[in-house]
C-alpha cells in the first residue's frame, strides 16, 4: 500500500494542484483521495482501470472543492491578477503565435510565464480546466479522460476544444492588458 501511495502521490498532487491552485488544499485533497481509495478499495470491481479509478476519486473531490470555494477563489485571483512584464509578455506572445512553434522548455525557465499560464488555467471553468489538466498535464488519452470524468468521448472532444479556445482568449486578454499598461 505504501508503494501504491508513493507511486501515485506526486501525480495526483500535481493534477489536484493544477486544478485548485493552492498547495495546502492540494495536499489535503490528495490525502483525502488516498484515504477514500483505501477505504473503498474493496468496492473496486476492476470494471475500469485502477489508474482511472484513482484519478476519478481525486478529481471528483477536487471538483467538489472548487465548486464550494468558487467565490473565494475568484476573489483571490482577482486580487492577485498577474501583470506580465515585458519579457514574459513577449514569451507569451510567442506561445500564442501562429507563425512558428515555440520551445516548451522556455516555460519551465521562466517563473513569470509559468505563473501566467497557471493563472489563465485557473480562470477556466472547472469542467474545462479538468479536461485540460488531465490531457495536457497528466497526459491521459481521451478514453481515460472520459472514464475519469464519467462523460462521453464526444463530450471530451468538444469540451477540450472549447477549453483550449477559452484558454487562448484568456491569455490574449492578459497580453493586451499587459500591453496597455506598458503604454
Amino acid at each position, binding site marked *: 500500500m*505504501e*508503494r*501504491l501511495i*508513493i507511486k501515485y502521490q506526486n501525480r495526483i498532487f500535481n493534477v489536484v494542484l*493544477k486544478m485548485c491552485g493552492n498547495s495546502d488544499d492540494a495536499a489535503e485533497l*490528495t490525502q483525502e483521495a488516498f484515504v477514500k481509495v*483505501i477505504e473503498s478499495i474493496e468496492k*473496486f470491481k476492476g470494471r475500469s482501470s485502477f489508474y482511472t479509478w484513482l484519478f476519478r476519486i481525486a478529481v471528483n473531490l477536487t471538483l467538489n472543492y472548487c465548486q464550494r470555494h468558487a467565490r473565494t477563489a475568484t476573489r483571490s485571483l482577482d486580487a492577485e491578477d498577474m501583470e506580465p512584464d515585458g519579457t514574459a509578455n513577449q514569451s507569451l506572445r510567442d*506561445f500564442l503565435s501562429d507563425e512558428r512553434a515555440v520551445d516548451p522548455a522556455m516555460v519551465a525557465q521562466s517563473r513569470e510565464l509559468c505563473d501566467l499560464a497557471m493563472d489563465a488555467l485557473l480562470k477556466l471553468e472547472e469542467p474545462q480546466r479538468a479536461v485540460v*489538466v488531465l490531457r495536457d498535464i497528466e497526459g491521459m488519452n481521451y478514453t481515460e479522460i472520459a472514464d475519469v470524468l464519467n462523460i462521453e468521448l464526444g463530450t471530451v472532444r468538444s469540451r477540450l476544444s472549447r477549453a483550449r479556445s477559452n484558454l487562448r482568449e484568456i491569455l490574449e486578454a492578459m497580453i493586451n492588458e499587459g500591453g496597455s499598461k506598458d503604454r
Partner: protein
Amino acid sequence: MKADPKIDELLCSFVDGELPPRQQTEIQRLAARDPEISRRLRQLQNCRALVSALPRSEAPGELFEQIKVAVERKTLLEEQPASGVSTAGVIHLIARRFLAAAAMIALLGVLGYVVYQIVAPVPGTEVQPPVAGIGKPLRVEPTQPAAVPIVVADSGFSGRLEIQTATVAQADAVLKRAVEQNGLSALVASDDAAGIRTYKLVSSRQGVGRLIASLQSIWRSFDGVTLRIEGPGQFAGPVTVQAITSGQAVSIVTSKNTAASIETARSYAVINAMTQRTPGRDVLAAISNDVAVAQDLATIDDKVLIAGPEADTTLTPPKGEPNVSLTIVLLHTR
C-alpha cells in the same frame, strides 16, 4: 473570423493524436493546402505546449504519514460503535453508579440510626438545659477510609491465542516441544473429540515471546490465528487482533509494559482489519496497467502503515518483570 467548433474539435483531436489514421492524413493534407487551417493548428499546438510545460509539483514529504494517521483514525472511529463494547461499557457504568448511590443511601440510613440511638432521649429522663459545650448538635464526621496511595504498577496482561489448523496433532507436537525448549511449564488440557488442545502458561513477556517465535516455522500452515489480550482495570481492553502474524504477536507480548502491549495490539487490529479489506486477486489482476502495483497490493506488508517497533528477535530474560498469562488454544479447522 470565428472558428467552426466542429473543425476546431477535429483539429484539437488531430493535435492530440486522437483521430483515426485516415482522418489524421486528411487533416495533414488540408493543413498543407489551407493556410488558415495551418495557422489554427499552430495556435493549438503552442497553446497545448504552454500548459504541458508547466513544472511538475511534488507532493509534500509528510503526505504518506498524514494518510497513515487519517486511515488509522477513521478505522478506529468506525470500529468503536460496531463493536458494541462502548454500549456495554455505558450500561456497566450506569449500573455501577446506581449501586454506589444505593450503598451510600444504605450507609446514611445505618449511620442515622446509630446517631439516633446515641442522641435520642431516654424515656423518663428530664431534659437538661443546654450548658455551654454540652448539648450541641452532634456532628458526625463521615468515616473516610485512610487514603491509600494509588500505585499504577504494570501487573502484566492475560492473553488468549486461538490457532485454527487442519493439523492439530502436528501443531500440538511443535508447541509442546517449544514449551520444553524454552524452559516453560504449561497446564495442558485436551478434548480429543472436539479436536481442541489448550495450553495455559504463566511466564515473563520474553518467555512468552520466545515461545511464539518458536512457532514461526509452522505459522503459515495455520488457517487463522487470533490474539485477544486484556490488561488489569486501569487499561482499556480487551483488544482482539485477527489474522495475526507471529511477528506481530511477538511484538505485542514483548512490548515494554502492558499499556504498550495493548497499544501495539490495537494498532495491529486496525492494520489487519484494513488488510482484509483489500480486493481479491481476480480484481487485483485488473488493477492498473502496472503489474507491479497489483503485486504490491497482493502482498501488503502487515507493518507498512504501522511504524511500530520491530519484533525483538534477540530475547533476553528480564529481571523482576511481571508475568503474563497466555492461553494457547489449538482448534481443528472445520
